[in-house]
């Protein structure tokens, strides 16, 4: 079949067309700067931000990616301090005072605080907002945060519909007084959460009623906020853009032009985006990339202390995990030092106790440390010498590489030090949650991040009626002490009571504490004034961008 050259040339035409199209596209691009370089020059901050935000209603959202956006476009009475997570930075409130036992707080609102539509921010707006999040029909998942207010729980549960019974008092247009159920010295820290943010009543009512969930008021064209930035564009699954707000009372101090938040779920994808110069901030690093940045680019990798504890839950209703001796044996056989050094490698601290150490002057009474000798002895005392007769059980993890690596390390440690064999079961996130809540597990990997900088946020989850307990463990004395803490104003006494709570908890060990978290992330050197924060909230109004020309 003699084919001439012409045939071949002809059939190459389509490839030629493709090639010339590509060339056209390439040559059209005279821009050799990376997106990050262009953005730095424009004053736009590009942030990797986990997943697509559920929504932007401060009373309905619960997640971290949402909160990152919300604290840019809204401002509560108290705002985030640029460097110190426990310091209260004045937000809409320019000053505040409380009574002698910190159970009644008065906030003085600044007169120049404005909504992005020009309305002044009033004390009545805050009162309306508190009423809104407590409205039972709204079904706000974080409404529980506000039950420190007198009468809030009854209102939230629908026992009364009279909002006047709730401890919120509008003294005058710019003075708000909150009456609490007991002394709450850490109230300013709680007020930074978006559950306490104000919404503009005029806007809410224009698009629905006070308790409508399905409302269009959070669409970018409708949303009215009171923060340093206002929303300008929102493309689902692509990015959300905010720009500096002219109506913000402190606008003169806002240095950047705006921020783009990119929802990137996978750590490896986010890291690739950072490496390719497409984002300034990569919120997550795959464990296998840590070494690369540590050795080659230490200037971009950060390990900041983070207010959280990684731990394993024991199902205390399942024998033999109902025996404290067994739980202690399992806990002491975990070489937590080795895990943070060799597995997680992010500068984490092995957890000696459960409460993150050194929070508001509180130090954990715990001294849990790897001790295989004692572990073996305790297990023998419990009736399982050298692990003989120990029933087969599984560690439940949600599907993620890091959890799997840690579980495998612990599996090995228990085999080596105790002679027991456990399996590992990984489940998809929602299935895992479902099984954990319903106590359909033996041992389950868990984590807890504090809501605010106070030890109580770690201790309140282990009371008998706490929905977050999920271990079947309960202790009467522990519950009693918790009630006492709630009515104790004196910081020294309060810390002592919480110390006693934690001691009880650590005696019984319904969980095995493993390590205290660090936040591992990548930050481009162009970004200035980004400081380590215990809760990882970085107020964007202080951030600066200075083009350095840095490239990986």
């Amino acid at each position, binding site marked *: 079949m003699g084919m001439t050259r*012409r045939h071949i040339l002809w059939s190459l035409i389509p*490839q030629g067309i*493709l090639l010339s199209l590509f060339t056209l596209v390439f040559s059209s691009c005279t*821009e050799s700067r990376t997106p990050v370089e262009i953005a730095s020059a424009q004053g736009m901050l590009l942030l990797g931000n986990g997943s697509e935000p559920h929504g932007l209603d401060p009373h309905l959202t619960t997640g971290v990616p949402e909160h990152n956006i919300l604290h840019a476009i809204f401002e509560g009475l108290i705002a985030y301090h640029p460097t110190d997570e426990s310091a209260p930075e004045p937000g809409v409130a320019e000053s505040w005072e409380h009574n002698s036992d910190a159970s009644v707080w008065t906030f003085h609102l600044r007169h120049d605080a404005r909504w992005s539509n020009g309305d002044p921010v009033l004390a009545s707006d805050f009162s309306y907002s508190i009423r809104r999040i407590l409205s039972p029909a709204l079904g706000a*998942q974080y409404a529980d945060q506000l039950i420190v207010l007198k009468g809030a729980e009854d209102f939230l549960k629908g026992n009364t519909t009279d909002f006047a019974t709730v401890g919120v008092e509008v003294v005058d247009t710019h003075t708000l007084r909150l009456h609490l159920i007991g002394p709450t010295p850490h109230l300013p820290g709680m007020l930074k959460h978006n559950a306490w943010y104000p919404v503009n009543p005029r806007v809410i009512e224009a698009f629905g009623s006070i308790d409508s969930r399905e409302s269009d008021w959070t669409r970018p064209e409708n949303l009215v906020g009171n923060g340093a930035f206002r929303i300008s564009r929102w493309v689902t699954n692509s990015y959300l853009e905010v720009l500096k707000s002219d109506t913000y009372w402190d606008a003169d101090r806002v240095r950047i032009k705006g921020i783009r938040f990119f929802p990137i779920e996978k750590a490896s994808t986010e890291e690739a985006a950072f490496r390719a110069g497409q984002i300034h901030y990569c919120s997550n690093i795959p464990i296998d990339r840590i070494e690369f940045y540590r050795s080659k680019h230490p200037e971009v990798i950060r390990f900041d202390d983070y207010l959280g504890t990684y731990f394993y839950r024991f199902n205390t209703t399942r024998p033999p995990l109902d025996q404290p001796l067994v739980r202690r044996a399992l806990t002491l056989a975990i070489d937590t030092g080795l895990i943070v050094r060799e597995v997680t490698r992010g500068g984490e601290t092995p957890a000696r106790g459960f409460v993150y150490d050194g929070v508001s002057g509180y130090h954990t009474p715990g001294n849990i440390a790897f001790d295989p000798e004692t572990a073996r002895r305790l297990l023998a005392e419990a009736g399982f010498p050298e692990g003989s007769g120990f029933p087969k059980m599984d560690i439940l993890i949600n599907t993620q590489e890091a959890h799997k690596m840690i579980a495998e390390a612990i599996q090995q440690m228990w085999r080596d030090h105790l002679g027991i064999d456990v399996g590992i079961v990984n489940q998809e996130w929602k299935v895992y949650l479902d099984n954990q809540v319903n106590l359909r597990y033996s041992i389950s990997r868990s984590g807890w991040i504090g809501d605010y900088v106070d030890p109580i946020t770690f201790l309140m989850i282990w009371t008998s009626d706490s929905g977050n307990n999920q271990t079947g463990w309960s202790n009467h004395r522990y519950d009693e002490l918790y009630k006492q803490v709630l009515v104790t104003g004196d910081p020294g006494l309060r810390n002592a009571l919480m110390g006693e709570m934690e001691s009880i908890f650590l005696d019984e060990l319904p969980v095995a504490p493993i390590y205290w978290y660090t936040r591992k992330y990548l930050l481009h050197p162009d970004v200035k004034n980004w400081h380590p924060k215990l809760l990882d909230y970085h107020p964007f109004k202080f951030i600066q961008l200075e083009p350095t020309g840095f490239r990986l």
Partner: protein
Amino acid sequence: MFRFLISRLLQTILVLYLIATVVFVMMKAVPGGPFSQERNVSEHILQKLEEQYGLHDPLHVQYAKYMWNITPKRLSPRALLAFDLKEGLGIDFGYSFRYEGRTVNQLIAESLPVSAELGFYALIIAALLGISTGSLAALKQNSSWDHIPMAIVMIGICLPTFVLGPILILVFGFWVPEPFRLPVLFWEPSYDAPWLESLRYRILPAMTLGLYYAAGIARLTRGSMLEVLGQDYIRTARAKGVSPFNVVVKHGLRTGMIPVISYLGPVAAHLITGSFVIEYIFMLPGLGRHLINAALNRDYTLIMGTVLVYAAILILFNFIVDTLLVWLNPRLRLRSNA
């Protein structure tokens, strides 16, 4: 022909309702709900939420509501062209469980054009590359023009997109020198840029998606061209002194393309609907990403919406191809009338 169309249409409707039913049952059977989260939600709040979203109704009531909401009640082609299912067909998938204040119809209308555009580029790449490589291999059978491209094609068929994607990212995002580097993620630049610049963001995903099908098309073209070029009428044409160009293009390709075209229909559907892995790798705001996230989030209404749209597109494209084939092939037409 008319009877064929009617029977196919009825089958299609039946299949869609069947899919909706299966999806409904599966959603209810999977553990974990849309509101389960790490931080436990109080019982009374959870109850309010479930009431709000109608999850407290008995299952058969929920099912009946679903079925009514997804039943077409009107037809407005103009609205359909804008991907507006509510105006276009009267279909209302309802509010998303996860994305507060956003309806599933809105989410589909925003994301389907992205998937469609990506599929369109990929189809062009697949067709141009596949047909030309395949014909070339057939014309120069058993030479290196045949062996080398066909070996590459074989690799292409074996490589799933979730492997090819990261490889292309590595090569074009990091290894090649500067002027040829391509953006590795996103659908458009993260700064305001001309349209042509956005096009650069679409090259890698479109290539990843298109190359796999290009490989299939190339093999199919090669096989069918080899068969056609050996036919008597080609020999006759040559003997009559028809120019080699006309032999290949007018006589050879025309017949040789028939199996390829019947393959292109399903491929077009797959290119639009089958890109969810690629949308995840490249973080594109398409329909596929919604499908994956909706399943992970137990976003019941969004799962139903995306699955049904995917199913409808697949069925529609198959329907078009079948109709075309019946129209083209008298033998099939006779059989369908019998």
